[in-house]
């Protein structure tokens, strides 16, 4: 059942399908369905296909194989196509047989007349010729009247100067522009065509290849020649994301990009499209849309001409690794005609292509991409020799280029300060920004990129420099589209306790702790089999009942002061305790040594040097500053030096000597590196590193890898993956079974179990801002002021009303910083409404003060 014939001037749509999209029956069914719907839209359709998955590699292997091996390798390729043909319900289609015979004869007698390279191009072209032949047979069997088109008749490679035989035949390019005569001739022949990606012809009619990623480029060439309405690339992901989603699962789908932005993003790292495929489309103003073959309902990315109406925004961040910098220093270059010309001539001579350039009056620094020539030849050595005749050379590597892309980058610079602050801590080798104003690139040590990119992306989101709220440009996050995400977030406990909480709030501001939630968190952790002992870091919330509950759940208690020790003892005397005070006095340690069930952890030499007697014949713990070891880069190293916690690694031997002399046994080795961490790999590394150290120490029985288990702070942040954590820890434990593993979480156990309740006092407007005052502020909850922490704020009195008003939620303290929540979207509030500030069970009440002589919120426990 075919749609009615199309008008001569009906538009063209080019559909391109990659290897994995042409290798199964269901994918071919989908191709047939898409071809049908596009024709029903009133368009002529040209389908461009890649070779079946794995075939191009198999042809490569065939090319490399010896003449005797080739026939058997070829038969494997033949069998794969015949197998798919059968599954497609095709009975040995003649065209396919002819094409397969061509392959066999090609490999059994390498052509004598043509060159080795020409033969290679011919051989590698067979994959697409086969898949398109198979496709044509299938589409026709479905009654679609598809015509097979030889791409080589349509695409003529451009002759470029300075190209050797190899690039001319294997990495050809085509200057494609709208060709009305050709498209009309094609239209006269039919309405549905299927052709090959990756291949073209040269002037002599010889087959040439378009290089890696060539099928996308073919589709773009066809789109340009046909002046198509659009080109659709069907692949295994919905489109281009704001960062590499494997590294940044919160990366957003870019629903719309202009050609230039898209070109920058794909050239600096996104692998979805080949960088070559955009320029033919840009010249002919043909839009390109990317779609996910497996999820055709997703919006995908549309790339087309600039749209002025969108808000300026950074669109993406990427990192390219393996970058080498060449820094050239000379006074001679100052105002010297031709200096740079000489310099660049050397790069050309050694076949090295320069990417980024930064210059000062006496220095020019350029970057080189990690090409084969760079890595595996002596090109850099020879280049440096040549350059050293005219300047001082330094070769800096391995580096990573971190690039922000977005139209109007210079106009956004002032909003990038939080991001620049991140870079401030590292060694930035080079910064570049070009006059097209599309990008800003920082070249840093390569080891930094893995950690830096996710952090920068998250800052881009938080600061609103990446306008994820603009639906015209941004879609959902990769995590929500593809993540193996756990079931929808559970409803917070306080929904079910609403009336009780509203009643409690009548007594004035108060914290309420929900013990079943504490128990649930504790049990979730106890599930991690590799951890032999858990301690609760009671500084997070030393409320007596919480301590008892956690002790019942099998947690020891970790204390950092005599006061905490006393509280822990009072709550539950039998529970084992850790005392890990930092810069505590001699008296503090004396008290701790008198506390039974308590293991003391030291984090410096001073206590052993001066008060060694307290530790004679005792087991002690040692907190070490892994600073240098972890991550091996500047940031962590300076972090080590600038942190007051932990014994410097350099002092380890001295510490052990002292301990031995005194007769103290170091049985626990401990490190704690940070808080609010959501990456499970963090603890795995700390664990492995501590184990490595412990092995050299002998007396160690247990490793304490600290806490810092984070809870999501921002909307869309995924919770810590406890399964992944358990798995990673178990892997290390298999290697180091001799050590017990301890952990000491705090916030993770109690934060979500606590809420702060406070009633609305006043409302004030200032131009566009609405201030919503509540009866307590930073005197009860200082985290927002201290750390910029974000806590969800809810109007509990109007829980189900629409949140339609933007408020700045502030307290009554005489400080400009007394803000509990910025830009909170709430239902319209009235005096006396009860606001609930969520996730305040940790570092809330315990950090409260009497500032302004206002009594802070009280505490209540719900069993």
């Amino acid at each position, binding site marked *: 059942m075919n749609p009615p014939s199309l008008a001569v001037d009906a538009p063209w749509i080019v559909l391109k399908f990659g290897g994995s999209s042409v290798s199964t029956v269901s994918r071919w069914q989908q191709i047939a369905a898409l071809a049908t719907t596009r024709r029903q839209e009133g368009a002529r359709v040209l389908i461009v296909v890649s070779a079946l998955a794995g075939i191009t590699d198999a042809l490569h292997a065939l090319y490399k194989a010896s003449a005797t091996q080739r026939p058997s390798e070829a038969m494997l390729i033949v069998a794969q196509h015949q197998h798919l043909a059968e599954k497609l319900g095709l009975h040995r289609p003649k065209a396919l047989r002819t094409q397969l015979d061509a392959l066999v004869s090609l490999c059994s007698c390498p052509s004598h007349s043509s060159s080795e390279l020409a033969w290679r191009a011919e051989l590698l072209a067979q994959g697409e010729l086969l898949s398109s032949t198979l496709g044509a047979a299938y589409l026709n069997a479905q009654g679609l009247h598809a015509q097979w088109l030889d791409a080589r008749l349509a695409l003529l490679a451009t002759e470029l100067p300075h190209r050797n035989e190899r690039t001319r035949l294997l990495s050809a390019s085509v200057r494609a522009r709208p060709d009305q005569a050709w498209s009309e001739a094609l239209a006269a022949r039919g309405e549905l065509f299927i052709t090959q990606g990756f291949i073209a012809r040269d002037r002599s009619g010889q087959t040439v290849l378009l290089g890696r990623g060539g099928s996308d480029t073919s589709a773009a060439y066809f789109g340009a020649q046909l002046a198509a309405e659009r080109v659709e690339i069907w692949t295994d992901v919905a489109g281009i994301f704001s960062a590499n989603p494997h590294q940044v699962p919160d990366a957003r789908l870019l629903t719309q990009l202009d050609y230039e932005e898209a070109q920058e993003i794909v050239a600096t790292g996104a692998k979805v499209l080949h960088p070559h495929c955009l320029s033919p489309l840009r010249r002919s103003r043909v839009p390109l849309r990317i779609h996910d073959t497996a999820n055709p309902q997703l919006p995908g990315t549309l790339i087309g001409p600039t749209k002025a109406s969108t808000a300026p925004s950074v669109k993406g961040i990427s990192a390219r690794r*393996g970058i*080498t910098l060449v820094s050239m220093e000379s006074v001679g270059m100052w105002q010297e005609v031709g200096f740079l010309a000489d310099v660049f001539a050397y790069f050309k001579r050694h076949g090295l292509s320069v990417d980024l350039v930064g210059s000062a009056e006496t220095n020019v620094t350029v970057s*080189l991409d*990690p090409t084969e020539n*760079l*890595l*595996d*030849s*002596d*090109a*850099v*050595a020879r*280049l*440096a*020799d040549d*350059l*050293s005749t005219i300047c*001082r*050379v*330094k*070769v*800096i*590597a*391995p580096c990573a280029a971190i690039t922000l892309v977005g139209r109007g980058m210079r106009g956004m610079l002032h909003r990038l300060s939080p991001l620049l602050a991140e870079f401030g801590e590292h060694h930035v080798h080079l910064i570049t920004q070009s006059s097209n104003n599309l990008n800003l690139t920082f070249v840093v*040590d*390569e*080891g930094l990129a*893995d950690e830096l990119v996710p952090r920068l992306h998250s800052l881009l989101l938080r600061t609103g420099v990446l306008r994820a709220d603009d639906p015209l440009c941004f879609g959902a996050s990769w995590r929500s589209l593809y993540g193996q995400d756990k079931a929808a977030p559970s409803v917070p406990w306080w929904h079910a306790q609403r009336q009780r909480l509203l009643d409690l709030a009548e007594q004035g501001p108060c914290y309420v702790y929900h013990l079943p939630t504490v128990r649930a968190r504790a049990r979730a952790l106890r599930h991690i089999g590799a951890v032999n002992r858990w301690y609760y870091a009671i500084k997070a919330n030393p409320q007596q009942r919480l301590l008892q509950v956690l002790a019942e759940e099998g947690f020891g208690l970790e204390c950092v002061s005599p006061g905490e020790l006393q509280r822990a003892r009072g709550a539950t005397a039998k529970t084992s305790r850790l005392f890990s005070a930092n810069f505590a006095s001699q008296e503090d340690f004396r008290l701790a040594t008198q506390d039974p069930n308590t293991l003391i952890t030291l984090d410096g030499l001073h206590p052993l040097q001066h008060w060694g007697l307290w530790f004679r014949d005792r087991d002690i713990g040692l907190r070490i500053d892994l600073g*240098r*070891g972890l*991550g*091996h*880069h500047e940031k962590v*190293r300076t972090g080590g030096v600038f942190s007051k916690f932990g014994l410097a690694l350099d002092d380890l031997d001295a510490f052990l000597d002292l301990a*031995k002399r005194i007769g103290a*046994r170091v*049985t626990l080795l401990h490190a704690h590196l940070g808080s609010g961490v959501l990456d499970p790999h963090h603890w*795995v*590394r700390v664990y*492995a*590193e501590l*184990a*490595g150290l412990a092995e050299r*120490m*002998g*007396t*160690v*029985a247990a490793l304490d890898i600290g806490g810092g288990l984070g809870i999501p702070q921002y909307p869309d942040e995924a919770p810590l993956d406890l399964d992944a954590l358990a798995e990673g820890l178990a*892997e*290390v434990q*298999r*290697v*180091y079974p*001799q050590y017990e593993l301890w952990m000491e979480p705090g916030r993770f156990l109690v934060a979500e179990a606590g809420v702060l309740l406070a009633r609305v006092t006043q409302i004030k407007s200032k131009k566009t801002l609405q201030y919503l005052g509540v009866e307590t502020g930073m005197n009860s909850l200082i985290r927002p002021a201290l750390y910029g922490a974000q806590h969800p704020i809810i109007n509990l009195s109007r829980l189900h009303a629409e949140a339609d008003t933007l408020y700045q939620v502030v307290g009554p303290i005489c400080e400009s910083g007394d803000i509990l929540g910025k830009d909170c979207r709430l239902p319209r509030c009235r005096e006396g409404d009860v606001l609930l500030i969520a996730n305040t069970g940790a570092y809330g009440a315990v950090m409260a003060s009497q500032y302004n002589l206002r009594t802070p919120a009280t505490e209540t426990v719900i069993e």
Partner: protein
Amino acid sequence: MNTPTSVSDPRTAQCFRLVRCCYAEGTAELVYAFDAGPELIERIHFPGQPEPQPGRRKAFTQALRLLHWVAGTSYYKAGVPAEISFDDEPIDSDSAALLDTLYRHGLAEFAYRNQLQLGDRIHFPADAKLPEHAASAQLSDRVLVPMGGGKDSLVVVEALKSMAAKATAIWVGTSPLIAACAQTTGLPMLNITRELAPELFKMNRMGAWNGHIPVTAVNSAILVLAALLYDFKAIAFANERSASSATLEYEGQKVNHQWSKSWAFEQGFSTYLQRHVAADLQYFSLLRPYSEIAVTQAFSHLPQYFNHFSSCNRNFRILSPKPADRWCGQCPKCHFVFLALAPFLPKPRLLSIFGHNLLDDESQSDGFDALLEYHQHKPFECVGEGAEARAAMASLTVRSEWREDALVARFRQEILPQLDPQDLPLEPWLQAASEHGIPARYRPAMQWIGGD
């Protein structure tokens, strides 16, 4: 006899007892005790649970005893008591001499670090008479290659492949990195695992003496057992010439961190094996004639291993694709391998292996000074000689792409002027020495490594 269960501090013990050893169902059990304390049982597992062939029983029994004695270093050192005794049967004078040497030299670094006088303490009683010369065990013409995850064993693998020898990669322990390296070689693989007596950890916590043991000797003895069980005539280690040079002197004795990788140990052990275990068993190091530098040069031609190997023994227990997880970049091994590869690889390639330019990092200067033996003694690690390191560094000072890097520039300005230029060329280090124990059967493999 009562078997007490409580562990006491072995430093107070009078006697170290080698209790017994046995083998069944693929597991060798080695039993030790201090005085009348609890039995310390080490277990070594051989995959596939092979049984010794009837014709090799005698050789096997002797190899098992040898392993028992050699692996005793791990336990003896916990207490270093004055007396050593054998519960099962006495040993002969050859064996006692081998063990005296092994324990004295193999534990020399341990003694130095703990400031113990061991030399006069270690004395193995020889109460049995010398047996007859061992017969041939009729072993097959196949070779075991112990893998370490570093460059050396990979060079041995490729050298043996070049002469089409029938080689099998073998390693002791659970390191995923070594397993991954072994996998990359494409050779058949054998993985032997070792469980130390758990009481040893308890003793360590009580303050038992602890430190370096001659682990290559223990692994060698394990491999001898493996050769007899799995039918291999040869064991080809990857110990270089520089393994023979001492780290320092202490109590009039040379302290060599890698003594059990030295030529002296190889000779003594090999002679002992042929005299007492099996006349046809070949134990040797294929890299003995070569310097670290020469082996590193050979390795620089094996790019297939660049992203798998690691010589760093701090970080490499956990497998990870990131260079920073394979190379800590801080330890002497990292420093040495980086420096030794630098003359032979394109700079960007070398830096991509390590993920970090150690020679442009001023905070590493002490570490490199130790390698160069400049103001410092050679580190207690398996690294090359100071003169090798100086030659490698000197070669970088004339390379334009290296000379401005912080530590190369510092060497050029501060250290180089104090050195005799005649000692600095790299070429002499690439020559093979004549002192080695490589059997004629395996000498063709030397051609691949080069330098003769």
